[in-house]
Every structure is written in C-alpha cells, then in structure tokens.
C-alpha cells in the first residue's frame, strides 16, 4: 500500500519527545462528570481490538456538540477502529462509551458514518442518487419507500456538495473527489447529529477538500458534531477546531494549534516525521502522495495560531 519512504529523515536529527513531558490534554483538565454530561461522544478508558490483537488501549476523551474534530495518526494507529467503536460497529473489550448520551448503537439513526473509499465496491450497480437516498433509509420505517420529503432531501444534499448534475451517474464513473462528495451528500441527507467520516478528504484535490471542509464547518455551526480521520495535517491545522492525535493510545487531545506541535508529531509519527529548516516539519505518512509537494504536507511550527490560508 505505502510507497517507500523517499523522504524519511535521518533518525538522528528527528525531534524526540522529552520523557515525562506533559502533552496537551484538555479533557484531563475538565471535570469528568461535567464532560460526560455535556458530550456528544464520551469515552473512558476504552480498550478495543480484533480477535486477540489490541488496537486501542486506555482511550479517554470527550467531544462537545458542535465540534469539528480531526483524528490524526499514522496508518494502523486505530483511527478507523475508534470511529467504529463510537458508531457501535465494534464492541470495546473494556471501558465505557456514550454516543449522543447513550450506549453506542442506540442513537444510530442520528449518526451518519462514511467508510473509507477503499472499502466501497465502486462497481456496484447504483447511481449517485441511489447512494444519497440510502442516507434517508434510517429515517424510513420498515416497509416504507422514500417519499417526496426524502427526494427533496437528496436533491438538497446533492446541491450542497455540487453534484446536482450527476444524480443518474453510476458511482464507478466518478472521480475520487466526486466519490467523496457523494458520500458526504449521503451523510447530509440523513440530517444526522453526529458525522463519523473515515478519511473524507484523502486523495482528493485541494479545491474539493476546501469545499467539503466548508460544508462540515457549516454543519458544526448548526450544532452538529463532526469527527473525521485524516492524513492531511495542514488541513487539520487550518480547518479543524480540535485534534485527537492517536497511535494505539491517545497521544494528545485539544485545540489544533496546541496539539500539532513538534513533540506531539514526533511521538505520533516517529521516524516518518521529517524536520525541515526553520523548525518546519513534514510527515511522509500520507500514502496518497508519492512526493510531498512543497507547501502541501509541511507544518509551520512558528506560524501565527489560528491563521487561515
């Protein structure tokens, strides 16, 4: 899957986290009971895995409503597993979870989950309109067929993502960016309170990424919560309010500007982290890039916090 690491830094100059250094962890500073009562997603000491292989250990954090949260970490760090646990698709081995104030799975109709693009069978004989309509299925009762309201919601969702003219196109004929737009439209059509998006902007062009992030920002302003896994650290710094950095456990959690510092990045990505001159760092983990384009995956450690491109 991953191309050889052409830009791997010499391990010597790579930053290493000082032992015992306190990484920013905002949730630890909050009264846990308060955090739980006000959270859309709340995890306490959650450990989970597949068969006998643990993937996540001792994960605790809380996400307040209206948050745009990025989950970052290298491949195999447990990002997708975390989304599945929150969605109720995977039962944790231990620990406690609440999703929208209930055990995972109980509020499923208020959740829209979008799987990684690689997991979708793009040859499946469905059109763009069919896929977006699936976002309405949870709202329909058993035996009920979609009605005018559902068709309106599909049209509106397609308009929001700029895919109105592709309603009748088979999904395999779309570009990578269009495919992500369609799946975001499916999520929007269900009018969920919680979006769980696995790699929603991986492998798409910058314009599409910016447009999709605008839409997600709009949804969080309306009180919806968005949790998205991503490889794009620049996009994270610019567009997400909060970041959860994981590598089989929580490395850091808090505002994007605090989490994305060199020590945290070094701990997440290890030798995949590349130190550039002037204190900039780059990560060559993004498997969709053969070569890190200048300005694409580097992060200015000293840039003004909260600055927008």
């Amino acid at each position, binding site marked *: 899957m991953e191309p050889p690491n052409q830009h791997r830094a010499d391990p010597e100059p790579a930053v290493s986290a000082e032992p015992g250094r306190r990484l920013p962890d905002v949730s630890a500073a909050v009264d846990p009971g308060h955090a739980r009562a006000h959270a859309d997603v709340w995890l306490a000491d959650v450990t989970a895995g597949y068969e006998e292989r643990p993937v996540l250990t001792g994960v605790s954090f809380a996400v307040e409503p209206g948050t745009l949260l990025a989950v970052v970490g290298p491949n195999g760090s447990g990002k997708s597993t975390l989304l599945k646990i929150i969605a109720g698709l995977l039962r944790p081995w231990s620990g406690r979870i609440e999703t929208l104030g209930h055990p995972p799975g109980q509020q*499923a109709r208020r959740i829209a*989950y979008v799987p990684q693009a690689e997991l979708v*069978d793009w040859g*499946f*004989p*469905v*059109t763009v309109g069919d896929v977006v309509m*699936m976002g309405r299925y949870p709202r329909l009762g058993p035996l009920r067929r979609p009605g005018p309201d559902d068709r309106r919601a599909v049209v509106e969702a397609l308009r929001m993502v700029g895919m109105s003219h592709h309603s009748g196109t088979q999904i395999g004929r779309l570009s990578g960016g269009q495919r992500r737009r369609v799946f975001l439209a499916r999520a929007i059509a269900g009018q969920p309170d919680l979006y769980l998006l696995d790699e929603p902007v991986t492998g798409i062009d910058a314009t599409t990424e910016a447009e999709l992030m605008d839409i997600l920002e709009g949804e969080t302003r309306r009180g919806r919560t968005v949790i998205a896994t991503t490889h794009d650290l620049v996009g994270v710094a610019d567009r997400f309010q909060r970041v959860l950095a994981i590598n089989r456990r929580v490395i850091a959690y808090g505002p994007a500007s605090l989490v994305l510092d060199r020590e945290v990045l070094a701990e997440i990505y290890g030798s995949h982290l590349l130190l550039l001159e002037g204190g900039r760092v780059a990560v060559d983990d993004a498997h969709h890039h053969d070569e890190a384009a200048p300005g694409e995956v580097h992060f200015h450690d000293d840039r003004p916090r909260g600055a927008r491109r």
Partner: protein
Amino acid sequence: MDAILEPLGLAFFVRALVASAMVGVVCAVVGTYVVLRGIAFMGDAISHAAFPGLVAAYLLQVPFYLGAGVAAVATAVGIGWVTRRARIRQETAIGVLFAGTFALGIFLFSTIEGYVADLFSFLFGNVLAISATDLVALLLLGAVVLATVAGLWKELLFATFDPLGAGASGFRVDWLEYVFLGLVALTIVVSLQAVGIILVVAMLVTPAATAQLLTLRFGRMMSLAILVGIGSAIVGLYLSYWLDVASGATIVLVQTAAFLAALGLGPRTGLVARLRRNGGAGA
C-alpha cells in the same frame, strides 16, 4: 406454431412451465444479491447441503420440501455463524460443510435398499415430473421469498452495498445476513425440482451475472435477470421437450448461452463495443 402450442395441451408440461418460470424469477431476484455479494460458492454449498435433508425426508416419509428446507436453512445459518466467529476463513468453512453434508446425503442414500428414481431426479432435476401439490408448495415458497425481498428492499440493498454504513445507522446487518442466507436456502429448495442440486447454483448466478454485464443500475439489473431467468426457463423447457433431453440441464445451457452472448455483445465487455471503440479512436 403447433410445436409451441401442442405441449400446452399437456397438463404436466404446463405445470413444468409454471414451475420453471417461478424458479427463474425467484433465482434471478435472490441471485442478484448473491452475485453482488460475490457468494456464489455459498449457494453451491447450501444446495449440496439440501441433499441429506432430501434423503432423510424420504426415509422418514415426510414432504421433501420440509427435509430439504430444514437442511438448507440449517447449513446457511451454520455457515453464517462460523463466518461470524471468524476463527476460520469463510471459504474453508464452506468447503468443509459442502463436502461433509453431501457425503452425509450419499451415506444416507446408500442405506436405502433398491433403486430410488426420485432421489436421482433431485440430483439432476426433473421438472416435467412435478406434481400439482409440489407445484403449489413451490409457488407458495417462491412467493414467500419474493415478498421478503420486497419487504426488506432498502435494508438488503443498503447492507449489501455498504454494511458498515448500514450498521452504523441502525440496521441490524447481522440479522439481515441470516435472513438473506435463509432466503438463499429457500430459493434453492424451490429450485430443486426444476434443475436439481448440482445445477441450482447456475440458476442463482447466471441470470444475474448476465444482467450485470448489461446494466449499471440495480433495479434494471434485477429486472434483466428476471427476464433472462424466465426466458431461459421457457426456452430451455421447450428445447428439452422437442429434443427429448434433460430439462434442467437444457435450461442451464440456455442461460449459459445468454451469458456468453451478453459477454460478447454487452456495452462494456463486448467485442462489438470494443471494435466500435477502436474504430472510433482510429477515425
């Protein structure tokens, strides 16, 4: 014209025609999901698992639909359960159950004294021998399968296309899996008399595979599969009557011919389309 109308005066031929057409419809509908899930091998395993049920039903003097149905559904649920446990790979589980259940059928069969023509007709199908009672049972079971698919239309579509997304938004994907495997089992039971255990997987897979070559829409794929299923059942039955050859095998051969024709002439895979594209590119 006489060659077409003349057999319709024969009650057994009309019964066979109705039975084959119903089998064509039910197999096409369920087969569409089987093909899209890529579980043709599962259909083969379940059909072979019906064999011991048939023999047991014969030995116990109970209706064969009951014996075959219990065995097929039990195997379908068994495969689903073993797969969910995920300790061994699904294809391995199927391989074990496939051969094991069929061996059990042959074992039971060998305990019967004398020659039993009925059981051979289940191995290879003999729809021309279907009784009025069996036809009614076939139509009822087929209707149950079709009604279930119609009732669970959106759930089956969502869970087949995106099981994770469907599960996350509250659909019981695990239960739908069992229901679907149950439908495959019932479909096989319905088809046994028409084409027999050995060939039933063709009924399940070939019409849907043919349709998939011709369209990229789900509803259209199922409609085309039904057309191919009914059409090849009728054409195959007439051919077998005129040529005095085995009906089940003839129906399956007609389906195979339809598949090859679609492969050769289809919009995406066809030689004709390829020649036209190359011609267009050269011009």
